[in-house]
């Protein structure tokens, strides 16, 4: 099983079934929704990496709305729109709203798999960047707490040293008293 879960949204049962079968054959985890309403429910209750949605669907929730909902739930979901040649302009507008890519009907499966591979690569890079970021944050937290403790300690020691110096240079005090006071300052530091 490839480590990507895909939601296919299409009101046309033939295309929906075809996409499901082909993607499953390529070992992707696939779920299907027959319209935007079902897609919304599924998006809200499951985790997906990619949403493959038809642009034109009946009802108030079309492909653009599916895109908005998916991005609102999780901005890392990649959305690929499936569109008729005549709606390419709409698809391009959708890409400006954050859609990852679009495919024209009839679907060329080689092209589809290429796009999915590309998305998978980007997601892998993104995850490793996140992992690195987490590792860096942890290192930074530990380092900063160590450095801050040392910074304060050094400043306190410097203050004590200054006091010792002032005491030892004091012309009014007898030597044994100076040493006594200096030792007290050191003991307190």
């Amino acid at each position: 099983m490839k480590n990507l879960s895909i939601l296919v949204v299409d009101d046309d049962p033939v295309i929906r079934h075809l996409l499901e079968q082909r993607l499953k054959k390529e070992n992707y985890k696939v779920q299907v929704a027959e319209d935007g309403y079902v897609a919304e429910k599924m998006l809200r209750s499951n985790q997906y990496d990619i949403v493959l949605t038809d642009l034109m669907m009946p009802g108030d929730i079309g492909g653009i709305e599916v895109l908005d909902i998916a991005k609102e739930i999780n901005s890392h979901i990649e959305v690929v729109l499936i569109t008729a040649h005549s709606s390419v302009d709409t698809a391009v507008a959708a890409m400006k709203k954050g859609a990852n890519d679009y495919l024209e009907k009839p679907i060329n499966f080689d092209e589809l798999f290429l796009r999915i591979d590309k998305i998978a690569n980007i997601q892998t890079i993104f995850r490793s960047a996140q992992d690195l970021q987490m590792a860096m944050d942890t290192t930074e937290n530990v380092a900063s707490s160590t450095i801050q403790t040392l910074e304060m300690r050094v400043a306190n020691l410097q203050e004590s040293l200054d006091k010792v110096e002032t005491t030892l240079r004091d012309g009014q005090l007898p030597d044994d008293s100076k040493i006594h006071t200096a030792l007290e300052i050191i003991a307190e530091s």
Partner: protein
Amino acid sequence: MIKIAPAELKLISQYIQTITGIYLDQSKSYLFETRLSSIAETHGCKSYQELHTKARQDPSKKIEKEIVDAITTNETLFFRDKGPFELLQHKILPEIIDARSTKSPIKPRIKIWSAASSTGQELYSIAIVIKELLNGTSNYSFSLSGTDISDAAVAQASYGKYNRFEIERGLDRKYLQKYFTLFGDSWKIKDEIRAMVNFRKLNLMQPFTALGKFDIIFCRNVAIYFTLADRKKLFNKIADSLSDDGYLIIGSTESLTGVCPRFVPKRHLRSIFYQKK
């Protein structure tokens, strides 16, 4: 990609240090290649030596600017590490407001400087903290300045537009909704915050007394790229630019021990800030 010759490493490394203060380890030749190769190619140079000569002879300083933009890192976040902003909100701002309001009958002006403002996230975060803290009252006037060595960074900061990768980490959802507007696939800072700040270009290696004195200076994670000698010079100049009761905040993994004896560290909760002795 144009390979850098061993003989060129020292030359280019010194040149970069002169123009930016950034000290790049000469053993990391890939760093020079990945960042400078395309600039060399664009200007028709076959070697880095040639690029160096061309950059120095260019009266418009265009090539130098491109090199600065390529070398400086702009890795920064909104509210990058919460500590300094909590410090600002709960300790520094209340204290400075208190100190300033008793001294003068006219509206006190509090000057804040983000000394390496990169693409602006730090200064906008400071502006958001102030906006939240003052909550509409305006008994104080704030001047928020951001400076950076990179023209490209200053331009992006001034524009105040960020893509989702730049915005997601660190920024609370409530601040995103309140202070940003969705702009295509990006987020743009709202005018009420944008109007509080100004950005301009400044090279920290050069004198900056002209900026005047500040009450609060943020200089985080920039001096780490400098040599110790340059770091000493920088913090000495910063001490000159800080008001006597002003506050300095440096990066959470930075230290001024052995760098600038004019500052003493002070601790508040989990953060450290510095004041002049």
